[in-house]
């Protein structure tokens, strides 16, 4: 149905809009973590981790996820593959 609507150029239903907007707004209401705070967190995490491990800052993702009424901060930090050094 979603696919069909998109192909036909229908707008998403307003209830869907409402739910998606609420999902985001409730995360911030519940945790006091605004998108701005998340950005700062992400920048500082990248800085600390980069000191020890080789990562690509553009691939780092930090999100607040929720399960029922509990929230967790989830960081996804892909590591750059390091070319293997040859022994000897």
């Amino acid at each position, binding site marked *: 149905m979603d696919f069909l609507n998109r192909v036909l150029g229908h707008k998403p*239903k*307003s*209830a*869907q809009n*409402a*739910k998606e*907007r*609420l*999902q985001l*707004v*409730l995360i911030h*209401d*519940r945790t006091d973590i605004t998108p701005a705070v998340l950005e700062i967190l992400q920048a500082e995490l990248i800085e600390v981790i980069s000191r020890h491990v080789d990562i690509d800052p553009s691939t780092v993702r930090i999100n607040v996820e929720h399960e*029922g*009424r509990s929230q967790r901060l989830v960081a996804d930090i892909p590591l750059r593959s390091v070319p293997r050094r040859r022994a000897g």
Partner: protein
Amino acid sequence: MTAKVVTIASGKGGVGKTTAVANIAVGLAQDGRKVVCIDGDIGLRNLDVIMGLENRIVYDIVDVVEGRCRLRQAMIRDKRLPELFLIPAAQTRDKNAVSPSDMVRLCDELRQECEWVLIDSPAGIERGFRNSIAPADKVLIVTNPEVSAVRDADRVIGLLEAEGKTDQGLIINRLNLSMVKRGDMLSVDDVLDLLAIELVGIVPEDENVIVSSNRGTPIVLDGKSKASQAFINISQRLQGQHVPFIDLEDHDGLWSRLTKFAKGGE
């Protein structure tokens, strides 16, 4: 008797808290329970007019707290249901006239007198709300399937959790089924996904609610409308009965006949 104290709260105003209190109380009283309702909205009382008891107020909750009358004297007996009582709010005072510990003391006294105490919390999350939840054994959160009402309900749920008030139930009020069907209103499942607390009632939007508030006769006293049945169901669930949620499907509608036909007419 040891009453259970149930507070009805919402955060946002105008979602139907007072109507819910009046009708759940009537439902419980019709089952033969002794029920005392307390209007927690000092300065903006309304439970009296919704219950149709506005002309019989002599003393109010502030009179009790300040010792001008005994608790029994402030309890207005509903003539239609002799086991139903209202303790009205004061209209010319403000919320600070009563403290959370006053409410706890008052409800402890009421616990010996009746089986159910229902407290109508004011909107907001300030003093009046704090007063209303202080004595609560259970809190029912009323919301409408709209962004602002759901957001405020979530805030209230969070505040209740922080207070250790974990026995909570959700009432989704003013559900408009045809809007849900065409995708223009949050569904019951949407709201439950977002708020993640136990559902105790779904009340469909019903014009009769306004008619009954015009008359000062809670809709449950009239019996037959959809909203009335929904409130009766809530009062039965509160008493521990297992009542299935109202069937929201319109079985004779064209859409349901078409989908049945498409599914092979099961």
